Structures are given as C-alpha cells and as structure tokens.
C-alpha cells in the first residue's frame, strides 16, 4: 500500500453511492502526534498552573496581599501546591518536546508555508472575520488554511513559545537572568506567563468552537490525516 505525503490527493469510488470522493492527506503523522500529546499537556499545564497560582493568587506584594482572583478548585489539578508543581514540572517536558518536534517538522519539511501567517494574508483576515462573526458571505477557499486560520495558528504557536520562555524565567530566573531582564524581571515574568496562558485558553476555546462547527470530516482529519472532499481542491 502506498503511503501518503502531505499534499497527496487520492480519489476513490464510494461503494454504496458510486460517488467519486477525493481525499487529501493534510496532517502528517508527526503533526497529528504532537497535536494530541501537546493538547493533553497544555490542559494539564493550565489546570496545574491555576493550582500553583492559587498558592499566591496575586500579582502584587505579599505584604499586604491583595488577591487578584480565585480559581474554583474543580478547575485545578494537583490538590495542593506541591502536587500541582509535580504535574507542572512533569508535563512541561512533554509540552516542550512536542513543541520542538512540531516546529522542527514544519521548518524542515516546508509544511510551514501553508500555515504561517504572513503580511500577504492580511487582506484576507477581515472577510473571514465578517463571515464567521457577522454572517458575511463566505470567501472562496483556495488553500488548506484560510488567512484567519493562519493568523490563529501562528499566534497560538508564538504564544506556545512565549509560555515556555516565561515559564523558564519563573523556574530559573537566575540562570535565565538575561531573559528575565527582557521581561521586566521575575515579577513581570509571572504576569506574562499568566497572560500567555489566558491567550492560549482563548485560542483553545475558539479552536474547539470551530472544530464543532466544521463537523466530523474535518475533525477526523486530525486523527487519520486524511480529509474527504476538502473545499480548496479545484
């Protein structure tokens, strides 16, 4: 049996309906594998991170302490600060490893070209926003990722990198003192780390809504790699 490469398009006849179906291999194994492992680790990192935050739920001084927000226990993981730190310090490595493989694969394979947001995509963002949020007409789909998707996935990747860098400063502010200084010191790195987390959570929420709206065929493509009758095929 032949193997799919990203971009491979095959055609087959549906046994029952006799319709000709085309399928494109959109997501190579490395990307799918990293996607799922990274999603699990992100979920665990957010939940344990919130528990860690609850040990000092403030961005001000300790004395006097003014709490910024209280996260319900049910949204957190780890039970107590020490337990949450264990989850965080374990899954950060899976998160970083899948992130590196994901980025490395994109760069080495050239796959990034279809998803990296560039200034050329800028004019296409507004029409997609109008379509999704204000019921505007749907712009013609000519490529696997539309400009708004590119913007979302590129931003999420940047946020992912920032989450690791701000986290590194929180974990080892002395060894990464140069990075710490860039971020305005340990204290601000903690604010950035939290802000980046919020950004990632927003992305995930938007992402999940889109996945639900786009249905089963689209969802399955992140499991098998293959998408049946994608719109962008001429």
């Amino acid at each position, binding site marked *: *049996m*032949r193997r*799919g490469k990203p971009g*491979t*398009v*095959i*055609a*087959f*006849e*549906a*046994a029952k309906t006799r319709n000709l*179906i*085309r*399928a494109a291999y959109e997501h190579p*194994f490395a990307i*799918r*594998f990293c996607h*799922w*492992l990274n999603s*699990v680790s992100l979920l665990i990192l957010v939940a344990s991170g919130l528990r*860690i*935050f609850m*040990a*000092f739920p*403030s961005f001000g*001084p*300790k*004395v006097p*302490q003014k709490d910024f927000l209280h996260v319900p226990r049910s949204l957190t993981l780890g039970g107590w*600060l*020490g*337990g949450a*730190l*264990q*989850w965080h*310090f*374990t*899954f*950060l*490595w*899976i998160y970083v490893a899948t992130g590196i493989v994901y980025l490395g694969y994109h760069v080495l394979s050239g796959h990034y070209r279809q998803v990296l947001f560039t200034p050329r995509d800028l004019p296409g963002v507004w029409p997609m926003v109008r379509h999704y949020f204000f019921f505007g007409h749907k712009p013609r789909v000519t490529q696997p990722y539309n400009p708004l998707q590119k913007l979302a996935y590129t931003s999420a990747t940047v946020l992912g990198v920032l989450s690791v860098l701000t986290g590194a400063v929180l*974990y*080892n*502010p*002395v*060894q990464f*003192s140069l990075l*710490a*200084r860039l971020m305005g010191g*340990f*204290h601000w790195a*903690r604010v950035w780390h939290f802000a980046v987390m919020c950004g990632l959570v927003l992305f995930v929420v938007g992402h999940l809504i889109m996945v639900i709206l786009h249905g089963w065929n689209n969802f*399955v493509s992140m*499991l*098998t*790699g*293959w998408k049946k009758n994608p719109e962008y095929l001429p």
Partner: protein
Amino acid sequence: MDWFTDERDFKRLSRRSLLKLTPVVLVGAFAIPRLRDSLLEKGLAFSDWASSKWFRAGHAAPTYPDSELAPLTQFPLNSYDVDDPEIDLGSWTLKVSGEVQRPGEYTLAQIQGLPKVRQNTRHICVEGWDVIGRFGGARISEFLKLIGADRRARFLYFECADDYYESLDMATAMHPQSLLCYEMYDQPLTRGHGAPLRLSLPTKIGYKSAKYLTSLRVTNVLARKGYWEDQGYSSFYGL
C-alpha cells in the same frame, strides 16, 4: 490527483494512520493512581536534574540598589515561620559533623569572624511571591574552609531549632552568594527571621533558606532531603 483506489483501501489507509497515534493513549497511565505517583516523582526528578545541569557556579544572581529594597516590615513571614522555637541566643552554637576535619560546636562569634558579605538579593517563594531584601553574613564556602569540609562530599544537611531541616548540594553551597546569614537590613536577625543564624541562598527557591540553624552535617548520603522536599517538593529547585 496522485492515485486512484477503492473505498476499502482508503479505509485501511485511514485506520493504519489512526492506529499510529495509539502511543498517545499511554498518557492515560497518569490516571492510574499507583503509576501516577511514581511517574510524577520521575518527572520532578528529571526537572531537578535538568536544572542542576544548567546551574552555573560562576553566575551571580542579580543584586539590587538599596532603593529597590522592600522595607523589613514588608518582608513576609509565612505562618509556619512565626512559630518561634525560642532559642537561647546566649548559649547557641552550630554543631558541625560529618565529612569535616574539625567537627564540633561553633559559636556565632566564630562565624562573624569570617569575612562579612552584604547583598541585596531577591528572595523568591515557591508560592509565587518575591521580595528584595538585604542580607548579611559569611559565605558558606568560607565556613566550609574553617571547618575543613571535604568538598567532594555531595551535600550539606542542616537541622533547625524548630522541626525544619534542609539539604543543600555542594555546588550551590560553594556559590559566592550562598550565605550563613546573621543579619538582615544590617541588623542582627530578628526571631521571626530565624535568629541567630539562617541560610540566604539567592540561587535557590525560598524554602531552601532554612532559619534557626542548629546543626550542619557534611555528607554524601541524605536520610531526609528537607522538610518540604519530603512532602513532595523539588529537592534541587535552583533558580
């Protein structure tokens, strides 16, 4: 179009693709309580190992001008710390044992006789707060010289007048900013801050800077790692 096939073939192709993802399910091991604890312990140990690898003996923690100091009154005392062990400061000594040439009891005057270091450094608590304070004392490395410690030993093990205890790796102990601290803000340590002697370790997380020190053992083997470490916190936790 790259090739034609039939539906059965496509389904087989998809199924094989899907099955290759099954290793992801291994993360489910973390849902099994017995496996979870040992996996998380390994994860924490791996983090400790990594952070001990990028610890640089010659790299100083940032120091700050006096204008950035938090006032002593705003230097936090965790509720745990205010249980004053009521040390008799007059008869206090530090009991030294283990891999040292000159074991025995050392007085505060002997420690204060070593070159004094004063530094404004950031104290970072595992809870997430941080505070810049002024610490004064003797370098641990100087004290190790005084007691003739074997520097090939792996750890320093401290016991405190309360039920706290702590361990420190030799590399961090030898760091020039690691202090046996007897002053804060140019005043003798107050009882709340660990009088008469505490650690001040700008390259370690806060809970490593133990207060109310009573004994030091230089050792290769640790029966206990530390008050918090033995409850599941990181034992290296370098900053």
